[in-house]
């Protein structure tokens, strides 16, 4: 009797979140998946099962193997950019979080410096990206500086509208998403544990590998999920910083949407979702395996 009541209360408590989650996440996802299987012509989608969105996307890809077709190259490039961004934001983010958590002793300074990290977020994404242009352009500050120093004779072309500038902008935009969750799990580490490791003869590096990284793992995984999901689906940053010259998974979807080919766009969205889920589950698996060692 009371057990039934308790479980009813539990359901009621979870209810609002379930409703919001279903209405704004599960339902749209189901629609996208359904639409991805529909047929379409030049100007409208046709509600009939056809999987044309998928077949059109990969048209000729199998015939072309072992060479990669455009679409596979695009996905490969997206994954590569994502990996680079992830590796760099993780390194920088971990370092900043480590500094904040273990070297900055006072709570006040920790808060002040964390807020300092948020300053880039006071302006919009686009402004932060565009701000790189006068810096990295052919006649930009960096090139001018290098020429004036006599280090180079001709301006470097790869600074702007290149993969370099795209990754740079990603790192600039998203490192903070790594810092916050990692910092959050680091400040929960009891300083006594580090002392205990020191007492057992661990060097600083051994403490980092054996104690701090394993205990900061939840933060690392959460930060990685933030960065990977954002970068995998991005088309704005890649567009602006890549000078509209670099294709990405996100841009494929955008292009299809602009062409009103909703089933094709939905099909690519489902593929992207699949890839992202695979990457993230591989990541969590990797980290869990490390824990077992």
């Amino acid at each position, binding site marked *: 009797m009371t057990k039934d009541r308790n479980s009813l209360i539990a359901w009621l408590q979870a209810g609002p979140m379930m409703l919001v989650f279903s209405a704004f996440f599960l339902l749209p996802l189901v629609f996208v998946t359904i639409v991805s299987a529909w047929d379409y012509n030049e100007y409208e989608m046709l509600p009939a099962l056809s999987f044309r969105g998928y077949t059109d996307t990969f048209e000729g890809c199998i015939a072309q193997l072992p060479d990669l077709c455009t679409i596979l190259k695009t996905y490969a490039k997206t994954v590569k950019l994502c990996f680079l961004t992830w590796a760099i934001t993780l390194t920088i983010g971990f370092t900043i979080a480590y500094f904040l958590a273990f070297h900055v002793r006072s709570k006040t300074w920790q808060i002040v410096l964390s807020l300092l990290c948020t300053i880039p977020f006071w302006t919009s994404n686009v402004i932060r990206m565009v701000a790189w242009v006068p810096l990295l352009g052919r006649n930009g500050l960096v090139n001018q500086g290098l020429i004036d120093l006599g280090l180079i004779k001709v301006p470097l072309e790869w600074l702007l509208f290149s993969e370099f500038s795209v990754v740079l902008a990603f790192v600039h935009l998203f490192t903070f998403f790594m810092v916050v969750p990692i910092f959050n799990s680091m400040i929960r580490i009891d300083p006594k544990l580090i002392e205990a490791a020191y007492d057992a003869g661990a*060097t600083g590096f051994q403490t980092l590998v054996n104690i701090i990284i394993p205990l900061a793992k939840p933060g690392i995984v959460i930060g990685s999920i933030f960065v990977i999901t954002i970068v995998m689906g991005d088309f704005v940053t890649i567009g602006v910083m890549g000078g509209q010259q670099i294709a990405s998974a996100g841009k494929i979807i955008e292009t299809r949407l602009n062409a009103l080919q909703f089933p094709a766009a939905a099909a690519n969205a489902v593929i992207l979702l699949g890839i992202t889920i695979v990457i993230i589950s591989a990541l969590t698996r990797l980290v869990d395996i490390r824990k077992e060692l």
Partner: protein
Amino acid sequence: MISKATLELVSVTKRFGSTIAVDGIDLKIPSGSYCCLLGPSGCGKTSTLRMIAGHESVTSGDILVGANNVTDLPPAGRNTAMMFQSYALFPHLSVLDNVAFALKMRGVEKDERHTEARKLLALVDMQAYEQRLPAQLSGGQQQRVALARALITKPQILLLDEPLSALDPFLRLRMRAELKRLQRELGITFIHVTHGQDEAMALADLVVLMNAGKIEQQGSPRDIFNHPKTEFVAKFIGGHAVIRAGDETLAVRNDRLILNAPSAGVSGDFIAGTITEVEYQGTFIRVSIAGEGGTDLAAELSETDFDQTGYGVGDRVFVTWNAANAHALGAHPFATVSTAGAA
């Protein structure tokens, strides 16, 4: 199996900014002894322990282990190991890996270090739990694991920072006996920080009572209890009546106080007072007395003695003591027989 070394502190001082936590203490702890650093919180006992461990730098002075000056060595180079107050077990490692941690840091192979760790788990009777995580253990079990982890490096000196404070009273008594047994079996020095005088009394070969960064008195528990040098010692160690007689302060053990009926007549010094409470304690009876001069006393009488008198709450009594049982405190340490008045 384990070599032994004396620990010596030579005018060791610790300053935090302008405050002095430890003020030039000299201390010699013989090898293989159980030493308790005792004192109220903030007396400098934990700072002293942490300096011995190497977790706190020494402002001035030297720390010697045997013939080695270890003042500036890292913790792992001192032949000491520390057991932390809240045990500080690594939450992500199994019991076995926690114990084997120090050996892993030294690059000992997995099989070898696990074999060694199992030996220590057997020593503290925790073999059955080797695959558990610390969060799956009770407080007493965590403490055993922490002990095993500290002992795996075969230290000459084990440092224990309030090891029993996190346990409930029943478990505290059991672990206390266990610590003493381990120390005896291993034959190494234990230095145990505590604020509980009963703990120090029960365990220590050498009690070092600290106050305000200085050593107030050191000696065997019996020596300290029977010959407290200062008022602070007498009050902290408990079980003493601190009595002002003329310009002297005396300490008399509560169980050496004598109660006299006013009609009996007393000679020499005495304190007149009224009994406010009589508590039966099993092995003795505590009689609380509100002294007329403002001194409150708590005389402890044996059941037989108490029964002979038949005192009750509200009775007026004269409290006296034997001169031989009164110790002058303060500026005249060990002045046991001087002016203690009555006979």
